[in-house]
């Protein structure tokens, strides 16, 4: 558990990249254009970042591409020098931000482990002493003397991760890991992270994977355009991240809808509890899905169908106005609205809302949108399947031993 002491303190950190507009790469250019060097493009990447990370805390940093999170990590790792602000660090900081730094494909695993170990801050003697443990953890005993170029990418990651575990750092800074490796090794990595958490290693993780943030992190921080947008509970930060990420307009209706004759879809939106017109929803929350249509000609008994699709285009759920007893006749220009209320039992993920309007239930489609709205579900990582059906589990203990 995190102790009440800060292992990392960052105050008012500022970083600007200055890149020459026409990059003077050669002495000749400099000689020809001696005054051009004054022109710089300035990228103000970090604008006054302040935060603390407690000792033993697993701290997540999230943000969209270009938000400054990798730059921040590189400043923390002392790879970049910040322009202003102060940073303090307690304990031994792992000097790398990526696994497998310095791996050479032409050398054997044995040599690479020694090299990588020294890169990660061990002395050559320590690296040799821990060699067996590292190979055992990576489960690569049979391939020790093979060149690394003959390894699969999964095997390389296993080796790199194993060296990192042995690197003895009090503070680890990690940029996007664990994307590779089979399920069994992923589990091993997860176990290792939990163990490190318990042993009091301070870990700062930069990632795009919200499930990882919610699963491992004690706290998280969201960077947006170089400032701290949110900091605190990982669930809340993940939710804010998804909001930022998907706050753009929903897919262009003109491109998708037929909508020129009979009827058109006017609006599709989702309300969450206390969050009107949202795109993000926690697992277990009530959602209200609204569809508004407009009749372009008199319709006797129009029907609206809606469905939810997973990212893999699996239709998870579908319903229609039939379930509400059917819509009455609409005059030309008249609007109607359908609302579907449901408990969100979906697994964490990104879903699309599809809508269609037809002349009558069962046929004569007038307008349709394959992706009328986006729905991002978080906090449902524990769900094993695509949805968590309403269910209960009964357990009975048998008094007799099973017959042999």
């Amino acid at each position, binding site marked *: 558990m995190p*102790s*009440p*002491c*800060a*292992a990392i*303190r960052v105050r008012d950190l500022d970083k600007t*990249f200055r890149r020459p507009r026409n990059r*003077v*790469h*050669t*002495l*000749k250019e*400099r000689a020809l254009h001696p005054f051009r060097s004054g022109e710089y493009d300035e990228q103000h990447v970090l604008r006054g970042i302040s*935060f*603390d990370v*407690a*000792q033993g805390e697993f701290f997540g940093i999230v943000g969209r591409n270009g938000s400054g999170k990798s730059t921040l990590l*590189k*400043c*923390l*790792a*002392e*790879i*970049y*020098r*910040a322009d202003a602000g*102060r*940073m*303090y*660090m*307690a*304990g031994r*900081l792992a*000097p*790398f*931000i*990526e696994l497998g*730094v*310095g791996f*050479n494909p*032409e*050398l054997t695993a044995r*040599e690479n482990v020694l*090299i990588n170990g*020294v*890169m990660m*801050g061990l*002395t*050559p003697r320590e690296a040799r002493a821990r060699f067996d443990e590292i190979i055992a953890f990576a489960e690569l005993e049979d391939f020790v003397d093979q060149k690394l170029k003959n390894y699969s990418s999964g095997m390389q990651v296993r080796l790199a991760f194993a060296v990192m575990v042995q690197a003895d750092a009090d503070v680890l800074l990690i940029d996007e890991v664990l994307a590779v490796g089979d399920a069994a090794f992923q589990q091993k990595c997860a176990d290792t992270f939990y163990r490190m958490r318990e042993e009091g290693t301070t870990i700062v993780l930069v990632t795009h994977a919200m499930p990882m943030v919610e699963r491992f992190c004690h*706290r998280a921080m969201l960077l947006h355009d170089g400032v701290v947008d*949110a*900091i*605190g*509970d990982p669930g*809340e*930060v993940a939710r*804010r991240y998804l909001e930022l990420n998907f706050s753009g307009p929903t897919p262009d209706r003109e491109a998708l809808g037929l909508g020129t004759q009979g009827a058109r879809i006017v609006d599709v939106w989702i309300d969450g509890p206390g969050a009107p017109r949202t795109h993000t929803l926690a697992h277990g929350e009530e959602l209200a899905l609204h569809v508004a249509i407009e009749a372009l000609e008199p319709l006797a008994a129009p029907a609206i169908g809606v469905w939810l699709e997973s990212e893999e285009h699996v239709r998870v759920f579908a319903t229609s106005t039939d379930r509400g007893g059917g819509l009455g006749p609409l005059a030309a220009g008249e609007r109607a609205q359908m609302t579907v209320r449901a408990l969100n039992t979906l697994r964490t993920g990104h879903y699309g809302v599809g809508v269609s309007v037809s002349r009558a239930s069962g046929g004569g489609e007038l307008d349709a949108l394959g992706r009328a709205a986006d729905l991002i579900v978080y906090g449902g990582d524990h769900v094993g399947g695509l949805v968590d059906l309403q269910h209960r589990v009964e357990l009975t203990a048998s008094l007799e031993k099973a017959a042999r």
Partner: protein
Amino acid sequence: MSAAEVELPLAPGAREMHGPTALGAGWRRLFDLTWLLAVTDFRLSYFGSALGYVWSLVRPLLFFGVLYVVFTKVLQVGGGIPHYPAVLLLNIVLYNFFAEATGASVQSLVVREALVRKMHFPRMAVPLASVLTAAFNLMLNLVAVLIFVLASGVSPQLTWLLFPFVLLPLVAFAIGIAMILSSLYVRFRDVAPIWLVVSQLLFYGSPIIYTIDKLRERSATAAHLVMLNPLADLLEQARRWIVGPSAAGAVDAAGGPVHALAPLAVFLGLIALGFWLFLREAPHVAENL
């Protein structure tokens, strides 16, 4: 979003961080990494090929052979120089070290971009490793030189023991130049072709195929100019210590103690410039690559 942050006390032993430097993170780590990078490079250059080390010896030997034939048989330059073949080979091997070390250092930071951008370490380890790799080659080549020197009839003498006092300044000079080149290359990419030309000029601008006294017989000014180059003084001193007192030695070759101060100033000045440039550039190398 969350409740107002409560300020935690900073853990005991916390240090303020200042970003990357040329020498930071401790001498021990600088040494470990330099050694590791150099040994890895050295091994990689030989273990891939069937004949390995032989190749690094064949090149200077072949070069020596050609020069020897041209200058003693065709142009008949080396005639009056005692032990000319031994001196020529020694000079070529020493120059070869300098050219190899500085040549490899030019692009060293860019070649190791992955390391520089992903890891905190004393940046100076990179050019130092280039020089160290070349030094490993030099040590092996010097064994061949020793055999040749003995075979060509130079009698062993006590001054051979002073040879490290030529080698150490030579390595220091190579390090200084490596610092200048590697830090400049990050900003100016045409340092590479320029240095190719300069190191060619240095070959002819140093007493390698000739000796300084032969040059002085023709033009005293040219001799003074050549001796401004610290490499020239080191080669002359090496010649004196290896083949004996018939050779001038650095101070006499430069034209007396007063004249010897000029190359000494160049030597120290370039090394100082190298360190100054590298210390200045090191914090920003990762972002400027």
